[in-house]
């Protein structure tokens, strides 16, 4: 199914109706820059969000580690701290 869809997409792409004159090519320029900004923005948002979630998870694990220590386990804080 995926192969068929890709093949169909390529066929459709290769049968474009007519060449675009230069004076009306502006929408393609905007489309290009929109894609660039979207992908860059997406990468940065993904990385920031992942960092935030990892830090929150770390904070929770530290709390759990402290609770475990209070409950009788003689655990030490992580070496990196």
């Amino acid at each position, binding site marked *: 199914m995926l192969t068929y869809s890709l093949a169909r997409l390529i066929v459709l792409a290769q049968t474009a109706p007519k060449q675009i004159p*230069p004076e*009306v090519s*502006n929408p393609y320029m905007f489309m290009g820059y929109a894609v660039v900004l979207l992908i860059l923005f997406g990468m940065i948002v993904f990385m920031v969000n992942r960092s935030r979630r990892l830090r929150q998870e770390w904070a929770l694990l530290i*709390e759990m*580690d402290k609770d475990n220590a209070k409950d009788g386990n003689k655990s030490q804080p992580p070496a990196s701290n």
Partner: protein
Amino acid sequence: MSTATKPALTDRQLAASAQKVAPVAAPIHYAVGRTRILNGLGAISTILMLLSIGMALFYAGTDSVQGNVQRVFYMHLGAFGAATVAFTVTVIGGIAYLITRNARWDKLALAGVQIGLPLATVTLITGAIWARPTWNTWWERDPRLDAMLVMWVIYAAYLTLRTTIASQDRKARFAAVYGILAFVSVIYTTIVSRTRTDTLHPVVIAPQLSTTNEASVGAFPVSNDVIVTISVSSISWMVLCLTLIWYRVRQENLYERVQELKARVLAQD
């Protein structure tokens, strides 16, 4: 005892609970100087990217044949250059890992692909958008385009195949060798439009060679403003790429620390 009262949490429960906890001190402490350099690079790359987009849109002259869509070229080339840098970092990380067997090099190699692949995606999509008004088609069976697509698939497979190996050492060794061999596709993609005469893809940065490519469509005269804009754009993308790779390596370090702590805490429960 805690073992009787606290059931082990699943990853999803842990993530949900983590939303309610206030942040604590950073799990990894880096040298202050290095963090300042990284943050400085972040600021510089943001300014450079804004500058390069501004120059591409308002400073570089309009091409008389293609019109404004030619301005996509500055992002298209810059993203490809940055992807090449990212994949070169993967090669360096792979070679260094095979020599030293230090996992930090594997993280660097992985970060190279994780940043390089979206940049290669930018190159592919902007190329298709530029091709539609210039070549009268979004995509064409062309040596350069096919080479670029194969290169993209090879690096996408790198990320997929890594997840199929459980052993850390085997995974890192496999990824190092794969990352080094995969770079052949980057070299081929770079030189194919310079060595073959049956490709539509123009060669802009090699005027003496572009005349040998009789089939190319979309070439344009390289004036001074174009050269300056290409230079600023290429440098901006490369600085951005290296900055993102550095951030990504730090994020991978953080992930590793969280996994270590999680394993220890859950083992105690």
